[in-house]
């Protein structure tokens, strides 16, 4: 490759950025692949502007034949982010890659104007521009698939985590060991199934164990408090166990008031308290102590 190669492409990217953006947006807005249902126009405009700016700076400093070089790190990072968010917004992988490929048309048009007299020059530069955009488009597809995989894995994990069963530990004592992220809508389902189980078994104590919950923020706390209140209305007391020291500190800083709720560090502690309480409620001849 001679040093001169790609010079016009670089020049166009630098000089005609505004015009290119205008032409490109026009192409995209007119295309049948446009998804106004998934994305607003100003977001598309912003993304297009950013990609062009990143492309310009990468092309200015980097090798046009090696889009995996360090100069291209910025644009690769941007494309990775874009594909992931588009995967989540519901775009297909083809629609996502088309975003990059559709830049070809306005770019080629500019090149044609520049090389009006020089067919060989035009062919050379087009070849380079084509390769760059192909590679970036393929990279986008790759990242898109990776993003999708992550989403699916997460969903599967979440489903598993939150199908945590309510277990009967002892007569009158239920336990709900919670594991994983607690702020999804399924939390509601898990909490409701605990309440249902209280009704079904007539349990008087429910232990909610949050040892496996990594973060207790205000939303999680609110879910817990609501469940405790609802259980109380049905005649069952809740004990929250698995409050580790770091969680206890965080709850205090947040200002969440758990003083009305019995809390214990471990499930075992909670269970022994529960045993004492339920035995105390048994008729005297059935109790083992006192």
């Amino acid at each position: 490759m001679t040093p001169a190669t790609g010079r016009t492409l670089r020049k166009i990217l630098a000089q005609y950025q505004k015009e290119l953006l205008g032409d490109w947006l026009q192409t995209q807005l007119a295309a049948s692949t446009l998804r106004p249902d998934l994305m607003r126009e100003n977001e598309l405009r912003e993304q297009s502007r950013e990609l062009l700016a990143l492309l310009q700076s990468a092309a200015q400093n980097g090798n046009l034949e090696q889009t995996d070089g360090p100069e291209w790190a910025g644009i690769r990072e941007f494309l990775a982010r874009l594909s992931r968010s588009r995967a989540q917004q519901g775009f297909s992988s083809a629609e996502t890659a088309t975003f990059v490929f559709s830049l070809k048309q306005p770019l080629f048009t500019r090149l044609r104007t520049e090389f009006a007299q020089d067919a060989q020059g035009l062919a050379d530069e087009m070849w380079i521009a084509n390769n760059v955009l192909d590679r970036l488009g393929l990279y986008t597809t790759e990242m898109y698939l990776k993003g999708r995989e992550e989403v699916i894995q997460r969903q599967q994990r979440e489903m598993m985590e939150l199908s945590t069963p309510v277990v009967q530990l002892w007569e009158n004592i239920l336990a709900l060991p919670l594991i994983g992220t607690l702020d999804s809508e399924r939390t509601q389902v898990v909490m409701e199934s605990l309440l249902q189980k209280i009704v079904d078994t007539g349990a008087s104590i429910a232990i909610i164990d949050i040892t496996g919950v990594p973060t207790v923020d205000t939303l999680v706390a609110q879910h817990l408090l609501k469940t405790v209140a609802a259980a109380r209305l049905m005649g069952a007391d809740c004990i929250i166990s698995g409050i580790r020291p770091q969680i206890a500190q965080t709850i205090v800083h947040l200002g969440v008031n758990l003083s009305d709720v019995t809390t214990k560090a471990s499930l075992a502690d909670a269970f022994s308290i529960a045993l004492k309480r339920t035995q105390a409620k048994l008729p005297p001849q059935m109790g083992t102590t006192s």
Partner: protein
Amino acid sequence: MAVVHRSVLPIRSQEDIVRVRQATRESAVAQGFSLVDQTKIVTAASELARNTLDYGGGGEVEITRLSDPPRRGVRLVFTDKGPGIADVGQALADGFTSGRGLGLGLGGARRLSNEFSIESRVGEGTQVTIARWR
């Protein structure tokens, strides 16, 4: 003060909030934070990410690992282009919520951080910056 590492994550869905927490924890671990300090900044991140999504209509967070020898820190900047907050003092007050929350997230995030600032313009958006140091 030097930037060691910087990343930007979108906040558009519940899953994104989980990712923000994970990325924040990753940064806190990389900076050598204790378990308590990790938990504090992750919880603050969770609160601010949810506000960004619920009230700001979505946005993004910039996560920066900082080095200011002998200190090491993590800075989070949450930005949205939502409706903004008319009365920041009120929003920060414990128990105030315009939704159905406990109204503790913003004040809680401030208490969980070493540095806290908020900039908001009605009709333009909100930016909340926190940092925690070890």
